[in-house]
């Protein structure tokens, strides 16, 4: 059975039944702006014949969009585009300059040529010669009240173009734009202050214009050491922060510079590692290395020359969570506290912490060191906190140390 498509046109007109509508093909509302708007022809992108707004693209988007380290996707260079004749427009559109301030049309297609969907081999394209930079001149007829929908993204290689259409309006509420790696986005030349679309990131280029550090600056100026000038920590300025270089190169040493009249002042350090291990180092008790027994590559080592000395191996600073330096009387007698605890960086910067405490036979925590995101923060404590090392350590939260007696941990 064959169907004659022209049969309705040849049907006899029923004048006796005027309520019947004559079936005929709809005639395009010739050259009507509203008809173009309703039928969507005005929004069809020149590069996508037949594409309609809202119609899903037949070609999937590039999955590597947004991945910084992904291989560079194939780019379409201007020279690689096949010459395609300009597609005739379905209806003679009025000249763009003739549009009024209430232009209800969708933006005109930017490029009169459809873009080739054939990717080409990746070639380095200098930013000025980027094909997206020459995608078309801005539409001069676009107005500030252009309610037309933006042109649909073509499903070609060029569809991943981050370039905003030059005819973007002031009420462009478009969402973020996916960027292929190393793409050179261009801002719309007609963009206004009401463009709510997020700005695409700056295009990476071989030689950026200026050095603009992108790491966030600290919220407050941290106290730092000064080359050639000793940093003195006082109760009013008790802390200093070492840089990451100072915190990771060489070793950091502590030395108690005290006169003989002070008494038998000895140093020790209670530490806590990232692994959770916690104990003490105390030259006076023969516990010279941390972790205990690690003589080949200790994180902390105690020694004695003119004064007692503690050294932190900064190659292993990432293993260190925190530590406190304490002082006590080696012979159990009363100490007439005085002198200075001196910390020295590998570069020679000195941090001096005066020991100003009343005479006592208690254990004093002199300083603390905290590893804050790779930067060591030194604080002068000067705290007579307990009669024994165990009490002093517990007072500073070292509760993962088990003790043999009041002076010696169990390791």
């Amino acid at each position: 059975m064959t169907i004659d498509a022209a049969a309705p046109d040849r049907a006899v007109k029923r004048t006796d039944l005027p309520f019947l509508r004559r079936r005929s093909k709809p005639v395009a509302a010739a050259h009507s702006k509203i008809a173009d708007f309703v039928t969507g022809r005005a929004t069809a992108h020149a590069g996508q014949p037949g594409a309609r707004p809202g119609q899903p693209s037949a070609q999937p988007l590039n999955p590597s969009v947004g991945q910084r380290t992904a291989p560079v996707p194939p780019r379409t260079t201007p020279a690689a585009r096949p010459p395609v004749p300009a597609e005739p427009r379905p209806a003679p559109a009025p000249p763009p300059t003739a549009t009024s301030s209430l232009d209800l049309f969708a933006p005109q297609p930017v490029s009169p040529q459809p873009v080739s969907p054939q990717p080409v081999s990746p070639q380095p394209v200098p930013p000025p010669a980027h094909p997206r930079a020459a995608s078309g001149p801005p539409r001069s007829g676009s107005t500030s009240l252009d309610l037309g929908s933006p042109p649909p993204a073509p499903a070609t290689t060029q569809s991943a173009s981050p370039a905003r259409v030059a005819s973007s309006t002031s009420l462009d509420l478009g969402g973020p734009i996916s960027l292929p790696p190393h793409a050179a986005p261009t801002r719309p030349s007609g963009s206004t202050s009401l463009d709510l679309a997020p700005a695409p990131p700056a295009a990476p280029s071989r030689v950026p214009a200026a050095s603009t550090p992108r790491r966030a600056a600290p919220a407050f100026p941290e106290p730092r050491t000064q080359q050639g000038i000793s940093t003195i920590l006082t109760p009013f300025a008790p802390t200093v922060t070492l840089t990451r270089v100072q915190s990771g190169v060489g070793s950091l040493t502590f030395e108690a510079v005290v006169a003989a009249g002070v008494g038998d002042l000895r140093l020790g350090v209670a530490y806590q590692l990232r692994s959770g291990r916690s104990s003490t180092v105390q030259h006076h008790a023969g516990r010279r290395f941390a972790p205990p027994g690690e003589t080949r590559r200790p994180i902390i080592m105690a020694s004695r020359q003119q004064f007692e000395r503690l050294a932190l191996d900064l190659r292993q600073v990432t293993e260190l969570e925190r530590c406190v330096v304490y002082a006590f009387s080696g012979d159990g007698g009363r100490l007439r506290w005085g002198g200075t605890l001196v910390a020295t960086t590998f570069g020679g910067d000195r941090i001096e912490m005066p020991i100003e405490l009343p005479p006592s036979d208690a254990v004093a925590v002199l300083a603390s060191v905290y590893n804050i995101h790779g930067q060591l923060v030194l604080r002068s404590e000067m705290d007579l906190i307990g009669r024994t090392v165990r009490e002093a350590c517990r007072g500073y939260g070292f509760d993962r140390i088990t003790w043999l007696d009041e002076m010696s941990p169990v390791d």
Partner: protein
Amino acid sequence: MAPPMKRGANVALTQEIPSLTGVVLGVRWNAGSEQALAENLVAATILCNEQSRAPSEEYFVFFNQLISPDLSVAQLAQALGDDREQIEVDLGDVPADIHRIVVALYINDGPGARRTLGQLRECGIRVLNLADGQELVRSENLAPALRSETAICLGELYRHPTGWKFKVIGQGYDNGIKGIAADYGVPL
């Protein structure tokens, strides 16, 4: 594969490979049975301006500062493949005022026993394409010429009118990282 580059040799990377957008600098060494030496070796990268000086201590990239302020140079916390350390350089993101990127290897001067680079059996640097990991060039073994040095500048990336070039340096320092820091203006 290209023959290993000798000390002082250079190659025009971006001129030879125009599509090159980034490189990986791989540092490798073999300390043999000297485990303490291997554990105390540190690879560091110094970003320098036109006067071959680091603008600040933030431009010293190493294990405790894994990335430069401009995010163009980053050291991997865990190297991939056979390299002991790897530094990724995004050439397009390197600031315009950075003219050379020097890779050094030094022994950390900690409280433990002292070592020298003369105990190394093998030491070298190689350049890989950041995009696909393909090795582009590698240096010769720099270890045989080392004696009492405790630091060495292995190689450098530097700007040239023709693009980025790579050069094998191989210069040792008896005074360790202090000597390198003094030469390149890194505040310690």
